[in-house]
């Protein structure tokens, strides 16, 4: 069985306040447990990870080893800013394996994460951490975790290298697709536009189409697809193209086209209020009903259990 618990569902910046109480204001963090041993995988270290850390400390006896694999989708701030507040890293007897993409500058993951633990930003230096931390830099590949959990990775479309993860355990699959935006041809396709070149236009169309189908094949038949849905289609088209996030419509289209059984709309815009979701969700469910795909809004505290398929 895979069990997920959502500790942070917000994108960009934490948004506490009266208008986000139901959905949640913490940034990206998901707890994923699997198998009888309840192995712990954490996806992203947004501010939501603080609460998870507190719980882990509360439940562990003094001598118990806390073991976790932390998969960072990318190193933008909202996905790592909770890390210095993840209390288990200050405890001897915690073993944390950190996985994540390297940046285009080839800066190591350790350096990017460690930058946060600099006296100018935070009072504790990374050298003072008591836990055992192991860094694993990922590209597009396959990683095997304890008890037969397989994690596949693929690059999404975001302004920094960002990985989508596909967790497969005993025939059940959970896929994360944030932060991402559909690939599109960035080159002019209209002969009347300046800079139009028929060869470039054709290559751009083909590249965008192939990249989008590469992602759909990565998402294929997921038991649960957790997808970026930061904007409405109007917001996205108005002035946010190229920011690396999807609209609700993009997310639903990807879920349906890839054959997802269930999907969660994730990485909510800081401007999105609790009241906004009712109407959005009704519309998304209406579209998804054609393919019998269950759609929900990811909310803080939500727990989802997926049984083993094999």
């Amino acid at each position, binding site marked *: 069985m895979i069990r997920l618990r959502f500790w942070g569902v917000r994108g960009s910046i934490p948004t506490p306040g009266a208008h986000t109480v139901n959905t949640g204001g913490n940034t990206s963090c998901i707890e994923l447990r699997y198998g009888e041993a309840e192995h712990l995988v954490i996806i992203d270290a947004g501010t939501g990870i603080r609460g998870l850390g507190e719980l882990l400390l509360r439940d562990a006896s003094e001598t118990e080893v806390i073991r976790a694999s932390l998969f960072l989708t990318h190193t933008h701030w909202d996905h790592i800013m909770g890390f210095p507040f993840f209390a288990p890293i200050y405890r001897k007897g915690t073993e944390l394996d950190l996985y994540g993409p390297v940046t*285009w*500058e080839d800066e190591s993951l350790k350096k990017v994460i460690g930058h946060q633990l600099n006296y100018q930003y935070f009072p504790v230096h990374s050298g003072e951490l008591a836990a055992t931390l192991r860094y694993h830099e990922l*590209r*597009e*590949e396959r990683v095997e975790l304890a008890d037969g959990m397989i994690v596949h990775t*693929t*690059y999404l*479309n*975001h*302004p*920094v*290298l960002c990985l989508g993860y596909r967790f497969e355990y005993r025939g059940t699959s959970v896929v994360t697709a944030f932060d991402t935006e559909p*690939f*599109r*041809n*960035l*080159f*002019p396709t209209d002969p009347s536009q*300046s*800079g139009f*070149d028929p*060869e*470039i236009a*054709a*290559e*751009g169309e*083909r*590249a*965008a189409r192939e*990249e989008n189908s590469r992602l759909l094949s990565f998402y294929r038949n997921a038991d649960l697809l957790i997808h970026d849905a930061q904007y409405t289609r109007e917001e996205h088209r108005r002035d946010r193209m*190229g920011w*690396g996030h999807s609209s609700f419509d993009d997310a639903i289209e990807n879920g349906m086209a890839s054959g997802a059984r269930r999907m969660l709309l994730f990485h909510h815009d800081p401007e999105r209020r609790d009241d906004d979701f009712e109407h959005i969700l009704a519309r998304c469910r209406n579209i998804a009903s054609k393919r019998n795909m269950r759609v929900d809004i990811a909310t803080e505290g939500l727990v989802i259990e997926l049984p083993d398929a094999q």
Partner: protein
Amino acid sequence: MDAQERLSKLASYIDRMPSLPPTVTKVLEICNDRATSPVDLNRVISLDPVLMARVLKLINSAYYGLPNKVVSMVRAIIMLGINTVKNLALSTAVMDTLNRKTDLGVLNPVGFWRHSLAVGVTTRLLAKMHGEELSTIDEYFVAGLLHDIGKIPMDRVLAKEYVEVIEYCREREVPLHVAEREFLGFDHADCGRLIVDTWRLPTTILDTVTYHHRPAEYRGANSAFVYAVHTANYFVNASGIGESGDNYPAALDESAREGLGVDQTKLSELANLVDGEVQKAENFLKVV
């Protein structure tokens, strides 16, 4: 210093290798513009062998799971996004301004840039004449543009010895790669191969860089690429477009030209087209 020591000195320089001077100002201008268009970004990178190789290195090392390596800059910009490519281009261009004070190279940078670009343009034209598929034409351009990339670190890192190599060429009237081998123990094709291997660039580039002076020895699947680059290189040297440092280039390997199915008349007709393309690029970059 023996050949092995020279090669390891070159290897340590490769990741600091700067853009070519004629493109730097334009790269800075285009990449500092917040609203850079993908069209301009594609154009400016496609005119600089170092930048082109660097972007291909990034995309092919990151996406190593891809079944086919990416050779197209259009695809690289779509996959990596404008900002990533822009930042990479900026940092490569800035490296040039940092390195400029110690730049003791003997190759004329503008002349070398013209040569590289002209070979890229000619290779593309030859591929079209050979009837290659539209989708691979750009790959031919890239192979031509990058064929002499090995000369850049040799000219910068082994500057003093490279002056002697070029003088030796002039005195003895021998091709540059022959003089390099005699003087240094390896030639710019070997150094180019080192770059292509280190940066894991696609095999079309590996093969053309390695075999552009000895196409008859090539036995792999990319013979059309090797023949096109060899022929284009000969043609550009013979037409006196740009400066490759090769004042006495080897003769054209006729089997390469025949392998492409291009006759001498057709080849000589290319001169105006190539010149025109290089001039267009010079106007765009404001090369004076």
